[in-house]
């Protein structure tokens, strides 16, 4: 089990967290104007790279706050954590 650094609580065990999938996916600005293909993209399609992925986590058994992280999906290593609203940090691969 790896340690995940909550931006508020510090490093805690992975079991205290829940995964929230890809970060920075915002609700469409003009939902009424979206085509079916655009809706499909918003609802069903998420990034699935082998390498760094910006994603959401929630410290469910701690402060219960959401935050973002950049994690390398090939090694599962957390490269950066940052609070909601902060820009995605550049990470060295």
């Amino acid at each position: 089990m790896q340690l995940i650094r909550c931006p508020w609580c510090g490093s805690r065990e992975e079991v205290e967290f829940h995964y929230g999938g890809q970060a920075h996916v915002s609700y469409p600005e003009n939902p009424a104007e979206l085509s079916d293909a655009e809706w499909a993209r918003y609802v069903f399609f998420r990034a699935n790279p082998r390498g760094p992925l910006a994603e959401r986590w929630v410290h469910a058994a701690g402060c219960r706050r959401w935050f973002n992280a950049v994690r390398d999906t090939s090694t599962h290593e957390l490269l950066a954590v940052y609070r909601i609203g902060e820009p995605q940090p550049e990470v060295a691969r």
Partner: protein
Amino acid sequence: MTENVRPLPSGPGADLPEHPKFLWRNPDPKPSYDVVIVGGGGHGLATAYYLAKNHGITNVAVLEKGWLAGGNMARNTTIIRSNYLWDESSGIYEHSLKLWEGLEEDLGYPILFSQRGVLNLAHSLQDVRDSVRRVNANRLNGIDAEWVDPAQVKELCPIVNISPDVRYPVLGATYQPRAGIAKHDYVAWGFARGANEYGIDLIQNCEVTGIDVVGGKVVGLQTTRGRIATGKVALAAAGHSSVLASMVGLSLPIQSHPLQALVSELLEPIHPTVVMSNAVHVYVSQAHKGELVMGAGIDSYNGYGQRGAFHIIERQMSAALELFPVFARAHLLRSWAGIVDTTPDASPIVGLTPIENLYLNCGWGTGGFKATPGVGWCFAHTVAHDQAHPYNAPFTLDRFTTGALVDEHGAAAVAH
């Protein structure tokens, strides 16, 4: 002493028999093929076999970045069943099960297919309702399925704890008698041997690094062993499908996750069937050799690392112990993870793509092994005719746009 007499063998191992005959050649890639299949796992090998056998297409290469059947084909829990809810799924999974029933004869190779039955346990009132509904749906589709009560569960598998005094008591189960297990390596080797006999090149240690598209049409592949020109490309790369598809700018509604499984040490035969439980989340059978084979749920995060977190196994073991108290003294021998390609509706994507001559087979997620012969059959048809087989026609990529999903989360057994 005459010259014709061979000297007696000497030295360690000299009295051992010769190396057995290799099941397939290990060729270098040719500059060009009619069809190239990317991914030398069960699905890729079965597709190659049926391309040759059913469609007479033999100028085919299967490219594998590692060794044949070393990915999910070597890592699954070998459970075979067809008791899915919807008609679309019944079609392809039952087709597959029927092929399993004749596969050993067809391949001329032992695969240790054992129809020992599969129990899917229900632990809550909602589980019971959903399970009974699924049994009825299966029967309407001509698939053998029964609802069994806890006493019958105990009869079929005496080591299951059906006491009401546990956190998630067994309230009954669906039972598919024709379901079972097979020896996954032998299945892969049987298909590989069969494909090889038709002259198909199985090329290992050959990773695809690029897909050449000219005028919206696939014309070749860049690989770590050089460029290969080809008329058609069939992707069968499971957990790595998104990575391959991104080479042609195609995004897929797939998330790749680690899925863990483990085996115990070798034990006397104690487990006569296959038991799966969605709610407490473990599935168990006993391999022919004697190991208890157990599968867990997926690790929650996306990952390509072929390893998962220990707490997943810990929870899986506590679930297994509640169902099977007799396992308390069994020792874990080894655990591992495969990378599964999960889709939003827990159904696969098999068919054409927006790019001409590029075909896609992915999204089998946590349950692709059972489909091996069935999808090989249908995917080969799709590639040969540039048109989906009726059994895989519902499983298009554009169902996520049209909304015609085939939601099999209830029957998929591994929650994701």
